[in-house]
């Protein structure tokens, strides 16, 4: 390719420059790099700067206060709770996701009638805009008219006298937001798992069949190891989408229920501090505690990307 472009007669200088792959490539990429630098890199640095100041949402101005914001949050019970809740929320919801998505992907690998419809139904939680589908959940968790409560009572699972109040009891609220978050991520994990499973060559399957490996044995020693890399990617995405997104918790419980605020996350706490209380500096410091999570995920992805490159 290089030889072809060099063999052609030299035209005007500018046109010649356009023909050089390196030049053209940087011309095509640089707008994106500048754009992302300005909209992601810049704000990220600004977040770090703000976290060292006492800037407020009202006046915007702020004085340098050093590590004060970090020190205060580190010793703040509400913040410590939020970190713990974020951990529980992320781990439990992702375990649920792995379990259900794994089962679904294996079952969906086979051809069967009506698969298109079933796949559509499975995809709905991921395809519908989350802030809107959460309206449905808010209604389903209604204090008085919850369809879940009605069903449970008619199956004699819940008491009629003191029925569960989904979003107002600490443990139930935690369970509810975990379930809804898992519900949201399951379709995504399923399709990624499915792509991983489908990429296992047919020959491997045939060889396994000849060697007499079937069922669970085959799953354990062949499907699972081959699927592990792509399952890891799905999991890493799930962690980011869960630990750093506040829509589910904010809309369903607003970090509540009070007084213990059992579902408060790092994200909702940063929002309350930064916007609702107007302490931009404090909020920025809180949200920066998300960086370690992101760093771990990013390193995981890089390690994974390199591994696929080698093989």
């Amino acid at each position, binding site marked *: 390719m290089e030889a072809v472009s060099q063999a052609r007669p030299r035209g005007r200088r500018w046109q010649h420059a356009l023909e050089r792959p390196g030049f053209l490539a940087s011309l095509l990429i640089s707008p994106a790099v500048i754009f992302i630098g300005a909209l992601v890199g810049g704000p*990220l640095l600004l*977040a770090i700067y*703000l976290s060292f100041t006492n*800037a407020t949402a009202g006046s915007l101005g702020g004085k340098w206060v050093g590590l004060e914001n970090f020190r205060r949050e580190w010793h703040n019970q509400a913040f410590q709770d939020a970190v713990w809740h974020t951990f529980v929320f992320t781990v439990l919801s992702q375990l649920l996701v792995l379990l259900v998505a794994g*089962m679904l992907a294996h079952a969906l690998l086979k051809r*069967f009638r009506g698969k298109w419809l079933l796949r559509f139904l499975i995809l709905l939680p991921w*395809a519908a805009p989350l802030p809107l589908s959460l309206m*449905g959940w808010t209604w389903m968790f209604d204090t008085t008219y919850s369809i879940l409560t009605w069903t449970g009572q008619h199956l004699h699972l819940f008491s009629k006298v003191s029925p569960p109040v989904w979003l107002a009891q600490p443990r139930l609220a935690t369970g509810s937001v975990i379930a809804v978050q898992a519900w949201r991520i399951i379709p995504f994990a399923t399709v990624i798992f499915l792509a991983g499973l489908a990429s296992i060559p047919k020959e491997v399957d045939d060889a396994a069949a000849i060697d007499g490996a079937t069922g669970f044995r085959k799953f354990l020693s062949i499907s699972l190891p081959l699927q592990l890399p792509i399952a890891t990617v799905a999991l890493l995405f799930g962690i*980011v989408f869960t630990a750093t997104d506040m829509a589910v918790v904010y809309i369903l419980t607003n970090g509540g229920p009070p007084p213990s605020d059992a579902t408060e996350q790092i994200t909702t706490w940063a929002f309350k501090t930064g*916007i609702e209380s107007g302490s931009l500096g404090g909020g920025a410091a809180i949200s920066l505690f998300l960086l370690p999570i992101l760093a771990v995920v990013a390193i995981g992805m890089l390690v994974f990307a390199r591994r696929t490159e080698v093989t």
Partner: protein
Amino acid sequence: MIDSLVRGVREQGPAYLIVGPLAMLLAFPFYVMVITAFKQQRDFYDLQHTPYWFHKHPTLDNARFLFNETPYTHWLRNTVLVGLAVVAITLVIAVPAGYALARLSGRIGQSLGVGIFLTYLVPPTLLFLPLFYVISKLHLQNQLTALVLVYPSFTVPFSIWLLMGFFKTIPQELEDAALVDGASRLKTLTRVVFPISIPGILTVVIFSFSLVLNEFVYAFTFISSSANRTVSTGVYTDLIRGDLPQWGSIMVAALIPSIPLALLYNTFLDRFIAGFTGGAFR
């Protein structure tokens, strides 16, 4: 004949037994939303009868209330405006970059591609405070322009990644042939490469639009007046947090954008997976 039927049941039975109930469970909230959307208020506030089906006649009153008594049409219009502007900006920046990254061989291309992708992982919850600061300094609070300015921060990295995957699937030989025929590189791009990438570009359009509809934090932080909201925040702030939630209308409001988007999503899913996993994780 019977043999094949038995085999069919044996092979497909477990799949149905697993997928069927789980699919119903995952789609259940949407069933509740649809049925509530068409129920009379007296019907869904009635605890004596089953909530799973109509007890009184289905009605369109909820939709009528939504369109006549709430700013819903404003929100829809705002959402479409923001979506179109964001998609346009995204395409202008991401298509050339995605192509160049797919063709840049070696270390630089690979690292740059992964680097851009990693910026997609930086979440709005980390950037909304500094961006709030910037938006306030620029006096763009409560304007749709603020959203148009900020949303490409996540649609661009995401789209570059998807497009990189698509462009890698276009054989290099096709371009080489055009080059040998004497076409310039730019011409090869516009006449050969972009036309065959239209399905990939359409996928990016749909998924960018979907990201815009899914965004909550920025829209919630930057926009303060009811008339300037998008669908994703307007329904929550004005209809749920209002005095008495009109559940029927809220369900209609949630379903109107969700259903077409879900259908499009399903149609383009295979391309999405190919692009999403095709970049570096191949």
